[in-house]
């Protein structure tokens, strides 16, 4: 997974740093972050990342809406949804729109790395 491009869509600067700290020592390239889904979609177009980490609650365009747009353009996109809320109803809603990978915040570096590995292998983390 050396050089794999990861884009972070999250309104918290802390999450961008945490993702960088978790993945860059393992050779991944955490290229940029967007603080809402609208900017995130623009950055996806710009960078064509292999993996996208996506927050749920964000201003302007939330994660659920953003995921809808992402999957409309690319049904095979590797989206890892992250949220402080990890309740069953939210996970169900995310699954309905095609999200296969969900990580509750805060996350451990190993969990994020393993989830990306699974996503790239075409599996899911249920």
């Amino acid at each position: 997974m050396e050089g794999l491009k990861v884009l972070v869509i999250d309104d918290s600067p802390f999450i961008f740093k945490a993702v960088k700290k978790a993945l860059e020592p393992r050779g991944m390239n955490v290229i940029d972050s967007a603080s809402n889904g609208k900017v995130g979609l623009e950055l996806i177009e710009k960078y064509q990342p292999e993996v996208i980490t996506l927050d749920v609650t964000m201003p302007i365009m939330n994660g659920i809406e953003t995921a809808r747009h992402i999957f409309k353009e690319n049904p095979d996109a590797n989206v890892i949804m992250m949220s402080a809320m990890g309740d069953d109803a939210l996970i169900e809603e995310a699954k309905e729109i095609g999200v296969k990978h969900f990580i509750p915040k805060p996350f451990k570096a190993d969990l994020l790395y393993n989830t990306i590995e699974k996503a790239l292998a075409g599996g899911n983390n249920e």
Partner: protein
Amino acid sequence: MSENIVEIYGEYFRRAVEEISTELLDIKLNDLSGKEDRISIHGKKLDVIIGMTGDYKGRLLLESTEESARTITEIMNFGTLERESDLYLYMGEFANILSGRAITFINNSNQKKIIRLTPPAIFSGVDLEITTPNIEFINLCFGKDDLHIRLNIGFGGV
């Protein structure tokens, strides 16, 4: 809302603080509720308010000294903050993660999404006092060494 529900839901927040402080900060904050004389939150304070909406309405107030907030945020940031405004952003995120965990417990125990969170509002000031009338609330206090936080969780009447 019965006092019992406030107590029960307060217990989920207590569990969330214990889990999140360990997972995120690598610090096990001790429950000092009822031992308020052992915690010190005076002088310049930083308060985060997160609203709860849905079947039950309420709010979480997380309070800390500026020093405690700085300790928490510097651990989250893996070092000194680059901008002073990050102190507010990171404490908002800390409160959001903590509330998110508690609400996850509550929603899962009810087997449906009965509570959602609103974005945090963050305030700071010297000897700041925030009062919300007409709610039933529970106070929780946590600390370790010089790091102290206080949670006031209230439901109903908002």
